[in-house]
């Protein structure tokens, strides 16, 4: 028999979501255990040494590590048992038992309620379908960020960045500051993926060119990357003949976006096909009772403030569930109308305020978010896919949904 421990609330993954969750559960007065596979908690915050975190959650502009240390200090004042170097290999969602691997061996934890906050991973290289060799020097932006900011290793002399999402832009600046020549950033879309602020402060400040409607069409080098071939692409991302050229670089940094990390537990829990993360209600409960999820494994959030706020709600409901307090009320499903890609939550529970997170499909100069059955509209101007739209509806206003049995969210 494996050694078995017990706890009220078990939180799996110690990033921003997991830490905020553990903190709020502990404030409800229950026993909380937080498991983290790395040797310290913090998650992706530890390697995001730039500033731009916490304006909403802490009303102060912090760097990633500072945001993490605020949460760690707060957790240390409460009754949270943090166990690092513990990897959760599997969970039994119905019995709420987690199987843990640690340097001390394997064991099980039986929990009153479970919260999964395992974050996201980077989109793998294979999914980009670039022909050619697979030499060293081709790496995801998050891996490069880890090398430079945590491990003191500079992975390039002359680098190109593929993808203009914020992670790619931030790495363009970071590598430049460390003395690497960043030749250019390529984006296959006709508009940049990241925030204007990052285009200005990470690229223009350092005269790094951004080539739109351009992608990598070939890679060569044996052992180490020697050069890449780049081409213009049309609106279907098909390379335009006669536009290719070869550029010598020893690193190609891929910023292809993040994917919610769900595969370890997705056999038992429902996943939203568009968000690609766990389907949750506004109480952060998954498709199985007593199992909650929050953070980047629900959907890719652009602000840590949203992630921490969702973790906080998950923690409170998990704590109440573990004490046998039934906090959930009537529920209706949420349907995605037009112009929306990411949409959280997938279910509205009448007992909790509704916090909607919406990502647009494409940039829109003007628009209105419509919550059809609630007859609520919110106008916006200059909406871009890189910035989520957040909308909060007080639970007192949710009752009309019961007459319709659903909520439809669309952008006009």
């Amino acid at each position, binding site marked *: 028999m494996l050694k078995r421990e017990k706890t009220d609330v078990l939180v799996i993954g110690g990033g921003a979501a997991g830490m905020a969750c553990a903190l709020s559960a502990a404030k409800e007065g229950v026993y909380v255990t937080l498991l983290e596979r790395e040797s310290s908690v913090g998650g992706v915050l530890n390697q995001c040494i730039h500033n731009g975190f916490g304006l909403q959650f802490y009303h102060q502009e912090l760097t990633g590590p500072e945001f993490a240390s605020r949460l760690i200090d707060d957790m240390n004042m409460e009754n949270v048992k943090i166990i690092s170097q513990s990897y959760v290999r599997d969970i039994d969602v119905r019995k709420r038992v987690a199987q843990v691997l640690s340097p001390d061996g394997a064991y099980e934890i039986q929990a009153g309620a479970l919260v999964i906050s395992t974050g996201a991973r980077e989109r793998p290289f294979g999914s980009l379908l670039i022909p050619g060799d697979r030499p060293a020097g081709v790496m995801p932006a998050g891996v490069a960020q880890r090398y430079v900011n945590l491990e003191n290793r500079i992975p390039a002399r002359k680098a190109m960045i593929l993808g203009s999402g914020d992670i790619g832009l931030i790495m363009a600046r970071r590598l430049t500051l460390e003395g690497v020549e960043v030749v250019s950033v390529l984006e296959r879309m006709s508009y940049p993926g990241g925030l204007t602020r990052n285009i200005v402060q990470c690229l223009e400040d350092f005269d790094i060119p951004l080539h739109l409607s351009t992608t990598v069409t070939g890679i060569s080098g044996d052992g180490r990357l020697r050069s890449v071939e780049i081409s213009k692409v049309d609106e279907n991302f098909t390379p335009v003949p006669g536009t290719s050229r070869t550029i010598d670089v020893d690193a190609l940094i891929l910023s292809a976006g993040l994917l919610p990390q769900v595969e370890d537990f997705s056999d038992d829990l429902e996943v939203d096909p568009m968000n690609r993360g766990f389907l949750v209600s506004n109480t952060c409960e998954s498709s199985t009772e007593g199992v909650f999820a929050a953070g980047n494994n629900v959907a890719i959030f652009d602000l840590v403030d949203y992630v921490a706020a969702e973790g906080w709600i998950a923690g409170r409901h998990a704590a109440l569930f573990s004490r046998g307090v039934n906090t959930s009320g009537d529920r209706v499903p949420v349907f995605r109308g037009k112009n929306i890609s990411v949409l959280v939550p997938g279910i509205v529970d009448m007992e909790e305020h509704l916090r909607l997170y919406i990502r647009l499909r494409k940039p829109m100069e003007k628009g209105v978010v419509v919550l059809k059955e609630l007859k609520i509209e919110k106008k916006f101007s200059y909406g871009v896919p890189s*910035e989520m739209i957040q909308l909060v509806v007080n639970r007192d206003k949710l009752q009309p949904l019961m007459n319709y049995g659903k909520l439809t969210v669309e952008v006009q």
Partner: protein
Amino acid sequence: MEGHITCVICPVGCKVSVRKEGVQYTIEGNRCARGEEYARNELMMPKRILTTSIGVSNGTLPLVSVKTPRPIDRARIKEIMKEIKNLSIAAPVAVGDTVVEDIDGEGTPLLATRAVSCNGGREKTTLPT
């Protein structure tokens, strides 16, 4: 003081142009007043917060992340980075520790943004702020 500036204060991202006519400046393209002030500052002396990391000796991590608590002259960032590259400090380090008293000659310090404990020791605790 003339040129084009992309305002980054909000997602609209106005392209603001600043021209000198005689003793007057004309500022155009901004959709609100905040853009005018932003463009003026960007043209006169753009400033940025610098975040980077420096080496740690005898620590549980090889690096500690650092920042300037206020924006510094953008034009000096390259040379300041060269200086920082040659620095290292000894563990333990706590969040908020002053790593360099004056990094830009204007009295701006460089502060640690992460705690690093001594190799084999416990992490130095930080007081909640």
